[in-house]
């Protein structure tokens, strides 16, 4: 089992955001996370990436408990994410955003640089090429020199994905990655995500765009008021009576 949630609970003050959430994510798949607003999807992603610790429960990545690790150590295990409200390094260029994301992979040691050793140049060139290829995969290499703050909304989302790719993630957490994108962009993202999965990346995806989720995911977990309603294939979830009730209400 690649990623395993075991009875994860988390409350903020008196509000229970997650209660006893349990499900599994298979390696090399796209796993969808859906649910009405406020159902705890983003909190769950925050727990996985280490920004929020769970009150109780366990989270296992390939059998290793990670729920007590700080965010930077979880990232070092190959877990990358994007944010619903996009968090870029706005004053840096796109290329620099991605280079900054190479933190754990490129040494950039201080002493060879102070001595101006030739290896530094090689490392810089390699890092730049790596960053450019991340930008290219996210389809934004033509904006490499542009300051991130000047990008359009859809471009920012792509840049955030490119930056996450700089980490060479094994697990990619995407919080509404196609919100605000045009149809053509959505199709490009779809093929990007498929190619990532083919390359061995596992994706946990929050999205409100149902057709997108249904096309892309091999399994889906539905959250409702912080509880797992069900986990199953898109077809199973779509006809699940409780899911329909949670989304559409009960016919009175």
């Amino acid at each position, binding site marked *: 089992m690649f990623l395993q949630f075991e009875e994860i609970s988390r409350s903020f003050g008196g509000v229970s955001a997650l209660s006893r959430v349990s499900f599994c994510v298979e390696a090399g798949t796209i796993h969808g996370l859906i649910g009405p607003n406020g159902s705890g999807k983003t909190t769950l992603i925050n727990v996985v*990436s*280490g*920004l929020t610790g769970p009150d109780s429960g366990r989270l296992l990545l390939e059998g290793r408990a990670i729920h007590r690790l*700080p*965010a*930077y150590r*979880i*990232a*070092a295990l190959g877990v*990358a*994410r994007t*944010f619903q409200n996009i*968090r*870029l*390094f*706005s*004053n*840096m*260029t796109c*290329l*620099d955003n991605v*280079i*900054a*994301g190479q*933190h*754990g992979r*490129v*040494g*950039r*040691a*201080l002493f060879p*640089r*102070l001595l101006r050793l030739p290896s530094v140049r090689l490392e*810089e060139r390699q890092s*730049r090429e790596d960053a450019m290829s991340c930008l290219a995969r996210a389809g934004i290499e033509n904006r*490499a*020199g542009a*300051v991130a703050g000047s990008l359009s909304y859809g471009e920012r989302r792509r840049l955030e994905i490119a*930056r996450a790719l*700089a*980490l060479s993630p094994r697990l990619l957490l995407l919080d509404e990655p196609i919100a605000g994108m045009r149809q053509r962009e959505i199709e490009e993202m779809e093929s990007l995500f498929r190619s990532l999965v083919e390359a061995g990346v596992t994706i946990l995806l929050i999205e409100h765009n149902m057709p997108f989720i249904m096309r892309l995911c091999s399994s889906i977990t539905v959250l409702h008021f912080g509880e797992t309603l069900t986990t199953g294939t898109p077809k199973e979830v779509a006809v699940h009576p409780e899911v329909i009730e949670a989304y559409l209400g009960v016919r009175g």
Partner: protein
Amino acid sequence: MEYLAQFYAVYGSLINFIGINAILALSLYVTLSAGQLSLGNAAFAGIGAYASGILTMNFNVPYPISVAAGAGLSAITALVIGMPVLRMRGIFLAMATLAFGEVVRIAAVNMDITGGAQGLVGIPCKTTTYIIYGVLAATTYFLAVLRGSKIGWSLAGIREDETAAMVMGINTSYYKTLAFVLGAFIAGIAGALYAHLNFIVTPGEFGFSAAVQLLVYNIVGGTQSVYGPILGAFILTALPEALRGAGVTAGSLRLGVNGVILLLVIIYLPNGLIFYLSKKYLSKKAGRSGGTVQSEV
């Protein structure tokens, strides 16, 4: 040659103070490059000045060692107070470090070994112009290189968005503390050099107005490049002399002029002078390096 010697005889002490202030400005630049607004760097300079002065006077410690020890004590102090204090952000961090600065000043006033309010008098004058500018050059080179290293990139990431930096694998507490300690170390060096230049150090020199002055150097010069704070320190240290040359005597007016310059820069050149200078004259070079902001402008 004679003209140069004459110039130095008149302006030597100004040249020295420009160098010291530039090193102090760089000490704050390090902390600012991690997005941390510290008003404690003047106090760290004070710790370096007093510690090295006391070591030289009371214990006959050789000059280079006492300078290093003063800077080291500053750095250790920063490490100790940095751990709790750096949990705060923005204005709260500024207030906490400001309070720390006051503690240092009041301690210097009340202790016997520091000479109380009178200050530490009779420190041997060992610091020369060459030493000051040697240290300034070394610090500048070090910080320029640091910018492109893993540490520099981490600090830039933290400055831009701490949460994003964290999930990208950057140990934000570690790097914030590192920047704080490194800033204190550089401030400590500057303070120690100053103590051995000036014969006397008094508690008032490292108080609130000195702390703010360092911030003003950085704002006026700009923190886009390591040369910005140096430029800011140069302009604002040389300005009173230039004003005197123009027939305006110093005193209260000096602070007023500083204030006006600060306001003009904030309103019209919010990225500091260096940003516009580098845009105007170095645009070709910036273009070659991809026009990046983080990579050295």
